[in-house]
């Protein structure tokens, strides 16, 4: 039921510019639904339209920036997921556009997300559909420290464990944000919670 790009373009562009201006150079903490193709969602939240405030240092012959925004969005909407993410690393402007929350992106399929918690650690495991693909691991402690690992095959996460204060039971915000980030980029068949 997602709206078509063309029909929502004008409204979304105003919102896009306003939101990007508000974000300036901050990195987003989440993405919209995440892969092969993209479109801007029809988000009804109201934003005050402001001029694009971000400054960019462009190449001498940079001409892609001269393209109208809707053309640029159309080009980006035809990129595959990996290329879209890579595009966000090209420069500030592309990063801001690619990071916009309004993009709806097909998510990468994964087998499962496993949340682990015991007295000493809190860990998120992301298991791939194919065993030869990467697993992801995130763990955090209540002191605000966190640790991310990307690996193939089996991995003993306890080797890289933080020691956390057992008297602090609060789960750090970064833990939840990471779950949100994973869920926005990956489509999991299973969610397991282990204690």
């Amino acid at each position, binding site marked *: 039921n997602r709206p078509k790009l063309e029909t929502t373009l004008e409204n979304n562009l105003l919102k896009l510019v306003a939101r990007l201006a508000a974000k300036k150079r901050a990195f987003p903490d989440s993405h919209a639904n995440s892969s092969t*193709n993209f479109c801007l969602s029809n988000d009804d939240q109201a934003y005050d339209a402001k001029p694009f405030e971000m400054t960019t240092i*462009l190449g001498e012959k940079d001409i*892609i920036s001269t*393209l109208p925004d809707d053309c640029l969005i159309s080009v980006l909407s035809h990129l595959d997921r990996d290329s879209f993410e*890579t595009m966000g*690393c090209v420069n500030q402007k592309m990063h801001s556009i690619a990071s916009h929350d309004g993009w709806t992106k097909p998510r990468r399929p994964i087998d499962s997300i496993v949340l682990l918690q015991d007295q000493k650690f809190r860990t998120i495991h992301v298991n791939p559909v194919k065993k030869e693909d990467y697993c*992801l691991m*995130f763990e955090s402690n209540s002191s605000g420290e966190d640790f991310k690992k*990307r690996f193939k095959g089996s991995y003993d996460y306890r080797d890289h464990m933080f020691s956390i204060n057992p008297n602090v039971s609060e789960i750090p915000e970064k833990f939840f944000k990471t779950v949100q980030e*994973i869920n926005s980029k990956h489509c999991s068949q299973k969610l397991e919670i282990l204690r």
Partner: protein
Amino acid sequence: RIYPLMRVTLTTSDGASVTVSRQLTKHSGFIEKAITDMAVDDNAVPLSAVAVDVDDATLKLVIEWLTEHRDDALPYPEKTDEERRADDIPAWDQAFVQKWDTKEDQQQTLYAVITAADKLDIKGLLDMTCKTLANKINGKTVEEMREILQLECDFTEEELAEIRKENAWCEN
């Protein structure tokens, strides 16, 4: 109803004039609106004049594309997100782009045609040229993308490290 015998004179941004059949201009939302706004009598088969903000060289390419696609169905079919793909460019269109989209040109003509298609509201041409540009970028590394798009990296070292850290973990 479109009267194919009707002729439309297009005046370009650099002062040239090109006269084409209404059968071609019907694919341009901008020109059709301009003709409609003039309230000309189609039955009289008049010659209408429309100024377009496109240079002569680019307009000639646009007209070449329109001539090939003059019999395409209208309106241009809307694509859903799932249907939007970049690998379905017709063979004629691919050959058409390859004629002028050379390495030396560095996409300047492609950008000009994309912009013209946007200004003239020719959805089929806009879609095809945007796909062509997307295909140049798809599957490329960051450095290759910068080279293709002629963009400089303007991230600070800290920002770059942050992006690499995030991407290294959760992307690709």
